[in-house]
Structure formats: C-alpha cells, structure tokens
C-alpha cells in the first residue's frame, strides 16, 4: 500500500511539473469554463422556465444560476480528464511509457496519479468561484447534509474513475484525437449540463446514459436544489456505484491487455 501511495504521489508531482509550467495556465483553466457557464446561463435567461422544463419542476428564476452552475461544476470534474488523458497519451508517443513499464511500479497507481493531479489542478479555481456563488444564493438551497456529502463523494470518486478509464483508453489508442472529439463536446451536450436529459428525445437519452456525468449531475441538482433525501436519490447512488465498478474493471482490464499486447507484439497501441 505504501508503494502504491508513493507512485501515486510521484506521478501527481511529475504531471503537475510537466504540464503546469507557468501560473497563467490556471487563469485559462478558469476563463474557459466560466465563458461556457455564462453562455449557458444567458441562453436560459430570456425564456419562461416553467413552460420549457417539462418534468423538471424544480427550476425557477431564483435557482437557475444554481442549476446551471451545479451542472458546470460537475462537467469540469469530468471534462478536465478528456484533455489530460489526451496529454497522457503522449507518454506512449514520447517513449516514457516504455520506461515506466521497465519498472516494477503499479500501473493502476500510475494512471490514478495522473487522474488525481489533473482533477485538483483543473477544478480548484472554478470551485472557489462556484462555492462563492452558492454562498451568495444560499436561500435557494434545501439540503440534506448527509446526502450532500454522499453526492460530493460520489462526484469525486466517479470523476476520478472516469479519468482513470480515459487515461487507460487514450494511453493505448492509436487515434486519441478521435476519442477526444467523440468525448469532449458530446459529454457537455448529452450529459444534461446545458439542457436537462429528461427533455431529450429517446435516442439522445440513450446517448446520455453512457456518460456517468449524467447521473451525478442530476443527483447533485436534486440534492442541492430540490432537497431530495437518500430515498429519492438511492437509484442514482446504485447506478453510480455500478458504473464506477464497471469503469474500474474496464480500466484494470485495459491496462493488463495493453501491457500484455505490448509485450507480445512490441506495439503499445492496443486499438
């Protein structure tokens, strides 16, 4: 366990030093999600919400900002990994992955270190902003604290597992640019961040079911805006744990297959 944590910490430190060379990158990481958040918020603003939200009766004029911000906060947790996984795939092209394979280091700790590093570097500034907005709009909240802690824990764990899955997929994909295109924008559209997934047509709902972000964003909105308790969100919790388990399994299998394939064929690109 100590060795696992050691690799995790080393990988986090390395990725931080390797990717965050100047402090200005933090500004860009804040401005970009801020702009998309503002765009989404003002896209809703001119419309009478009670007539367009259909089944989502909990959105109104006063909590719209919380609804959109909650969605974007969740999106940032998940989206930061698409870009970081794309960067991570360069470990293969630059040959450093081969040197990692030359060591007895735990491969899962290696990709987890990258995921944790990306998560904390990418979200903290936006989180500060989001918490500030939440405090200013505290009157819009009806929160069950236990559910809120559970929801945030699931957000962190699931997003990290998502990050590890993406790292494993990007690491062994010969066409990581394709994965980037397929996962980045569609996640924002189909996971119900701008427009709630419940108002989607059936085919779009099927697409949204693929992204773990869909369940997490909806669960947190219900906890923080509607004040749902454990009984109301238990379906989301079960689905989230199930998806988390699947993601961890696929990541482990992918890592094993990737290394086995590389040792068998000399080719690090699995698919």
């Amino acid at each position, binding site marked *: 366990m100590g060795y696992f944590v050691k690799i995790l910490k080393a990988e986090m430190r*390395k990725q931080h030093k390797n990717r965050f060379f100047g402090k200005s990158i933090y500004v860009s990481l804040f401005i970009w999600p801020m702009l998309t958040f503002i765009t989404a918020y003002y896209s809703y603003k001119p419309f009478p919400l009670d007539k367009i939200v259909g089944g989502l009766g909990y959105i109104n004029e006063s909590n719209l900002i919380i609804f959109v911000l909650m969605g974007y906060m969740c999106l940032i947790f998940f989206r930061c990994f698409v870009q970081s996984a794309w960067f991570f795939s360069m470990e293969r092209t630059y040959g450093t992955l081969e040197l990692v394979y*030359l060591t007895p280091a735990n491969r899962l700790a290696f990709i987890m270190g990258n995921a944790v590093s990306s998560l904390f570097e990418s979200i903290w500034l936006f989180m500060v902003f989001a918490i500030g907005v939440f405090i200013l709009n505290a009157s819009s909240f009806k929160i069950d604290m236990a559910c809120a802690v559970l929801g945030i824990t699931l957000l962190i764990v699931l997003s990290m597992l998502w990050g590890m899955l993406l790292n494993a997929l990007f690491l062994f994909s010969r066409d990581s640019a394709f994965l980037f295109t397929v996962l980045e924008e569609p996640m924002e559209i189909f996971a119900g961040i701008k427009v709630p997934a419940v108002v989607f047509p059936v085919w779009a709902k099927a697409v949204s079911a693929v992204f773990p972000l869909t369940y997490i964003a909806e669960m947190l909105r219900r906890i923080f805006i509607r004040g749902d308790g454990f009984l109301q969100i238990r379906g989301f919790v079960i689905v989230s744990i199930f998806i988390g388990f699947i993601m961890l399994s696929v990541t482990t299998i992918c890592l094993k297959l990737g290394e086995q394939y590389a040792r*068998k064929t000399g080719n690090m690109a699995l698919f």
Partner: protein
Amino acid sequence: MLIAEHLSKTYETKDWNGFLKRKKTQIEAVKDVSLEMHKGQIIGLLGINGAGKTTTIKMLSTLLLPTKGHIDVDGLDGVKDSMTVKKRINMITGGERMIYWRLTARENLWYYGQLYDIDNKLLDERIQRLLDMVGLKEKQDIPVERFSKGMKQRLQIARGLINDPDYIFMDEPTLGLDASIAKELREYIRDLAFKRGKSILLTTHYINEVEELCEYVYVMDKGTVIVQGTPKALALMGMENKTLCIELHENHELLHAGLTEACMSIEKNCSIQWDSKNMTYTITSRRDLSETVTRVLLEHRASFRNFYHQEPSLEDAIIKLARRGY
C-alpha cells in the same frame, strides 16, 4: 549472471486483403539467440539495421515476451518473475526521447527513483552521486529542455543507473553525439563495468566503441547470431585476404617487375598496387607472401621505410561475415 537460451521472437502482422479479409503474416525477428552476461563485463551486440538487436534487448529487459526460449537472471525466470527482475535491470537508449523535458534533471531522476521504490534518503544521495558522475550536478535544477543533446544523453545514463541495476542494456547510447562527448560516455561505461562491477550489453553502429569497450561480441544478422567471440578473433575470422604494405624510400624501376613476377608465380590472382605519391606497394593475396617479397626486396637492394601486414579491421570483418551469412 544473465543467461538467455534459444530466444526467438515472432511478430504477427495483419494486413487487409480485400474488403473484409485480413491476411496474417509472421515475421521472425529473432531466431534462436543464446547469450551470457557476466558481472563486470561489457558485451557487444552488433549487426546492421533490422538484424534483431533491439528486439533481443527488449526481450532481455522484460519489455517483450519471447516466443520461444528462456531467460535466467541470477536464478530468476525473466518471464515469470519479471516484476522482480525489473529491479535488477535497466535500459539506456540513445536519442533525446524518454525524459520529461519540462522537469529538471533532479526531478526526472527523483520520479524514476520513486517508481523503483527507493528509500527517499538513499534516493537523494544516489541522485547527487549520479549527477556528479555524469557531470550534471551544477545543472540539476535546470529544466531538461534547456539541455544540450550531450547533457540529455548523460541524464539518460544517470536515469538508467537510478535503481543501481546489475544488468544494463545500452541501445546505441552514443547515437548522434559529437566525438568528445561520446568519448566521455565511453569512459563512464568502462568505469561502470570495470570499477563498479556492472554487466553491460551494448548495441552500437560505431565499431570503435566495440573495439574499445567490449570483451566479447555477438554479431547478429537476419535475427540470428551469426558469429561470436572477442573483437580481435572476429576481425581475424572475417579477414579473407592478407595485405602486405611496403613503403619505399625512393622509386625503384626494376622492383615492380620483380615483385609482380615473384608474387604471381606463387599466387596468380594476387593484387599488386603501386602508390607513386606515397611510394608504397600494397600486395593483397590469400597466401602469405612476406617471405617472397622480402627476398625480392633484398635481391633488388631496395631501401624501404616500412614493411608490415595491414591489421584486420572489425568493421570490415563484420560486413564480410554478414554478407556471406558466415
């Protein structure tokens, strides 16, 4: 001791053959290679591009699974116990890849040290010792992207020693370096083996490196070891003809006819070349003609500055051995 026995590696490639069919092709990159690495010894693995050197090194360093054969590293199975074997080996490659350019030299070494689970205090001491050894101690806090090619290569050597391996595989470590840095690196390599008892396997295209460093050489061609031995023995094995050089003090008009007649009478196909600028005869033959040539020189009272057999070159030998498939 590292013993590799009958190593073979076959790759399978799949190419589209028509719209839906895929054709499988098998490529035998390495065939039945056996070699040994002893402590404090530098051995060379030579051959032209595509001979199978890198595939062999990757199998020995656990990065590739052999299709057939067995690797024993101090009693451990190179395939089944690969995670334990990884602690005892390391690989150093030529070129500027495989290091993190935005990290400093010290950070790069620290990162790899962590992956090998080295105690932090010991790691700090080792990093300083290695940086000192490769002459980068003063530059340890500068990002690698500001390093010259030679400095990056020296850092690669330090990285390859971070886990204090017993067996080091060096794949063209001096690739693209200028002569002075390459010489410096050769000195490090020699010290590693002779002073620190490391066992080194070296692949290179520079024959002078092999002649200078290696005690024993394996020559590969088309995936197999075609010949092995000490560099001197290999040079002699590849030498088909004997070359005799005579450097004269002055031109001797009658000597040419005398030499030609005497040498041709012993070996019809021998070659006698006269270089009037350097006043040198070069006589190439399958048989040793030195006695005959000496007799002719004495008969003609020819005065000469030098009389010697040309030393066989390892480079020529390897090309010849590879060409004739031994």
